[in-house]
């Protein structure tokens, strides 16, 4: 981490390694219970404040959780932001609401089934008490508004509600019009009521309905549907810091949308070659810069990250910067290209760094340095001899996500057997922890305490560390490729990680 000009002010050595503890679990499996395919979590995302968490699953549902430990204070949001709020307790969440975001569909033109699985969820700018989020499956992006609504309990009606029927002029014409004694229906007759019909003081017998109940419930409404813009499967969506646009990326193209306009989008990146046989790489992930509304990064299946500047031109076929690690000579094998494919990228909160995840490693890049990553972390190096097996059972194509802590000092990503790793990326930090998504996260942890015996190399920029001991097998646990921890998210301000193991959502704090 000596690449940047302004090294993060390191007070006195690296921060202490965190001691992770189990916090909560939602949807825990009882021993022997079979996981329903539709319940498997496929997306996790905290909102900007960290007060809300959303998960999406393969059944097209979105579940929202809200933080309970800060909400009780009755302090306004602004005050909370201002004061340096000392956290006495770790964040706790509770189930808030859920809704069916996507349904399975069938594209008749292409004879293609469209799964309802939620690929990504992104929060948008909150306004009033309403929450806004974008969710997407392979083809269609939806904009949701979740809002508290008063439950209506109306009293004091003018007419007996049991007898009153719709006024018929706009409602379904099939509903019977209330007949008056003289047999005529009153359809539209109030249009003919002239001014003199009403006495100057009004009609005292008329009353306004009164809403008595003050109870509220949460209602999710789909505000907009952004469809028919992607020929291939959407792998990412990302909302922009300008609060009015977002991007959606599929294998070959990235489109730019205005949140208010669902009928058109602008293609900003197109890597589709004129001849599909010339196709050598696809887009795997894309994200907007957290503060500069004109910058976005996307990763490719060849292991490169491109930073583009929307200001330069309307169609951003040429990148502003390319981040690629030069291939180590002589290390090429059949799997080199497959495992180089980047499955996820994330900007750090300040936008200075980009974290990328490929099959075997996590890499941290400084956007001011495109010659190579400032740090590389091995995720599961012990799997390298098993690449052949992993290729055969397709596991090698699993797309693991990655995340950074809000302070940018640590990174995390998932692995197999429901394990995930947290590594320190501050200069000099050797922190590296393996945790299991279970109620006892340290259960299977191999001893990987800091190893002072291995001095930090100041010559090579690339710091490699982590457990290179091949054997968690030494613990007697064989690795299970079917239980993989693909999705996880770090709370934006605190040390809290939410991760998905099949249908269960586990949270850990430190």
């Amino acid at each position, binding site marked *: 981490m000596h690449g940047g000009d302004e090294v993060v002010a390191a007070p006195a050595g690296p921060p202490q390694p965190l001691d992770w503890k189990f916090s909560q679990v939602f949807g825990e499996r009882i021993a022997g219970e079979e996981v329903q395919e539709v319940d498997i979590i496929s997306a996790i995302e905290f909102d900007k404040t960290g007060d809300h968490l959303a998960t999406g699953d393969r059944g097209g549902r979105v579940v929202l959780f809200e933080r309970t430990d800060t909400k009780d204070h009755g302090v306004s949001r602004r005050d909370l932001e201002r004061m340096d709020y000392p956290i006495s307790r770790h964040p706790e969440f509770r189930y808030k609401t859920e809704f069916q975001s996507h349904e399975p569909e069938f594209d008749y033109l292409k004879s293609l089934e469209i799964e309802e699985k939620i690929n990504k969820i992104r929060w948008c700018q909150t*306004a009033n008490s309403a929450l806004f989020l974008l969710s997407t499956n392979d083809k269609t992006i939806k904009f949701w508004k979740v809002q508290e609504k008063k439950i209506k309990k109306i009293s004091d009606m003018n*007419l007996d509600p049991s007898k009153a029927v719709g*006024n018929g002029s706009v409602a379904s014409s099939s509903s019977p019009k209330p007949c008056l004694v003289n047999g005529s229906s009153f359809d539209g007759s109030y249009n003919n009521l002239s001014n003199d019909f009403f006495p100057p003081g009004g009609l005292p017998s008329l009353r306004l*309905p009164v809403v008595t109940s003050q109870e509220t419930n949460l209602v999710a409404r789909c505000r907009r549907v952004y469809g028919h813009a992607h020929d291939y499967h959407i792998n990412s969506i990302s909302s922009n810091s300008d609060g009015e646009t977002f991007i959606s990326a599929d294998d070959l193209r990235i489109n730019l949308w205005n949140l208010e306009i669902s009928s058109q989008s602008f293609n900003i990146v197109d890597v589709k070659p004129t001849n599909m046989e010339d196709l050598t790489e696809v887009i795997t992930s894309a994200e907007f810069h957290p503060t500069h509304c004109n910058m976005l990064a996307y990763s490719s299946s060849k292991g490169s990250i491109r930073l583009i500047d929307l*200001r330069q031109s309307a169609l951003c076929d040429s990148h502003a910067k390319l981040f690629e690690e030069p291939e180590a000579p002589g290390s090429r094998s059949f799997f080199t290209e497959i495992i180089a494919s980047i499955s996820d990228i994330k900007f750090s909160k300040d936008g200075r760094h980009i974290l990328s995840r490929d099959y075997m490693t996590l890499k941290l890049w400084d956007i001011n340095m495109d010659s190579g990553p400032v740090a590389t972390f091995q995720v599961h190096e012990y799997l390298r001899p098993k690449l052949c097996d992993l290729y055969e059972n397709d596991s090698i194509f699993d797309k693991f996500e990655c995340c950074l802590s809000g302070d940018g000092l640590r990174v995390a990503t998932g692995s197999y057997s429901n394990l995930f790793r947290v590594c320190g990326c501050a200069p000099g930090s050797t922190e590296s922890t393996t945790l299991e998504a279970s109620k006892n996260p340290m259960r299977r942890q191999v001893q990987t305490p800091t190893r002072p015996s291995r001095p930090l190399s100041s010559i090579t920029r690339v710091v490699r560390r982590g457990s290179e001991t091949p054997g968690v097998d030494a613990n007697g646990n064989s690795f299970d490729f079917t239980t993989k921890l693909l999705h996880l998210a770090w709370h934006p301000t605190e040390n809290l990680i939410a991760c998905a193991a099949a249908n269960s959502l586990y949270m850990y704090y430190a």
Partner: protein
Amino acid sequence: MAMIDEPLYPIAVLIDELKNEDIQLRLNSIRKLSTIARALGEERTRKELIPFLSENNDDDDEVLLAMAEELGVFIPYVGGVEYANVLLPPLETLCIVEETCVRDKAVESLCRVGAQMREQDLVEFFIPMLKRLAAGEWFTARVSSCGLFHIAYPSAPEALKTELRTIYSQLCQDDMPMVRRSAATNLGKFAATIEAPHLKVDIMPMFNDLTQDDQDSVRLLAVEGCAALGKLLEPQDCAAHILPVIVSFSQDKSWRVRYMVANQLYELCEAVGPEPTRSDLVPAYVRLLRDNEAEVRIAAAGKVTKFCRILNSELAIQNILPCVKELSTDSSQHVRSALASVIMGMAPILGKDATIEQLLPIFLSLLKDEFPDVRLNIISKLDQVNQVIGIDLLSQSLLPAIVELAEDRHWRVRLAIIEYIPLLASQLGVGFFDDKLGALCMQWLKDKVYSIRDAAANNVKRLAEEFGPEWALQHIVPQVLDMINNPHYLYRMTILQAISLLAPVMGAEITCSNLLPVVINASKDRVPNIKFNVAKVLQSLIPIVDQSVVEKSIRPCLVELSEDPDVDVRFFATQALQSSDQLTMMSS
């Protein structure tokens, strides 16, 4: 439940449905809010209905939008202008909702209400509300507040005016880009209400902040403010303060900002006056015409005529024309197309000699462009050049271009050129048309695509209108009628349609002598579709021709068709007979 008199029943239902489960019924009630208000009377409207609506802020967006709109014209129902302030609370809550269109409508309605309020009420109610919104916890309130300053400011006492200016400047520096965008959008309106001395001292710094914003989306909107502010300032101040901003915008890093400048630049020329235009804006515009980004060049090229109109022809020839030449061979077809759509308008500005010398080669090269839109755009504006240099110089190149477009494999291109044929005919004259274009017009009647045949039939009619029945009888009618013998029934149908269109233009005499016999003859066709179309055409001919002709030829033919074995033929024949009966009855 109260007992309601029978005549009140509809209004009672309307009121109850303000809270119905069905959104359509609620919407309906809200749209009839003025009726409800009249039924309740002014006082109860103020004391009950308005508070009731204020609480109703969690309804669906469609309902809120309708409510925001209704409240904008609600002053008469609450008791007139002196009570207008009671409308502010419900509109204030609507200014804070999440949905942009509702907020916009609420702001619009507040402006409308505020514009009618008495001065003391504005100070007592409107301005405090504005301040609340501007200090709102959520960005939605602050966004809305920006659009209300221009209503409040003129009525405010001096001290409040100072405060309002300060608040606005804070909004220009808000954390949220949405608020800054709204401040940028509304700056021009607000500035228009501000006294000249404050304009320079207070507004210009705000404007400068916005022009240097980090977010492209904010700077974009600041560009629009340039023209609005420029018009308010004295020319020398404008040149001193606005001009540098425009020049730097025209070199902004973001193509979107430059695109906005390209679109607006000509408006600014008027604001700054001729001298700065010559020295600064012309070079800026030239840079935009040569921009790296095609989108910017498209915008700039599309404004070339408007820009030249402001300059004198000498400046235009010297500075702009070389760029126009470059653009005519631009690598982007869209740039060439944008240029082609306006370049003909430069001819009157440059005058005859310069047009022949400089513009004509560009016209000719664009007429040979590989992209059909470019050629079409040139052809569509032919009349503008014709006035300056006459058509002869162009006609040599025009013909191949037209023929090629007429035979383009995309039917939409063919359709577009057909639309311009009457224009071309009028510009090129009868002689040219007879020689070259007549055959094309006939060829389109036999096109494979229905829309083209349809347009071709219409075109035949428009030509007859242009050149008169005499000419049409000689040059169009024989060829058209010839085609009635085409072996394909769809082409025969096109001819029937052409006949029905031509008949009103040609007049009774020619219709009887030339068109009618062909139609009558077609009633013996073996295809039922032709036969019922004959019935339809005959029906359309009845009002044109003489009653005696109707009796002698049309009716017997229709009677025969009304006994046809085919049900559709019988239907249309009967229909035609009935309409003929009605006409007879009316005339007798």
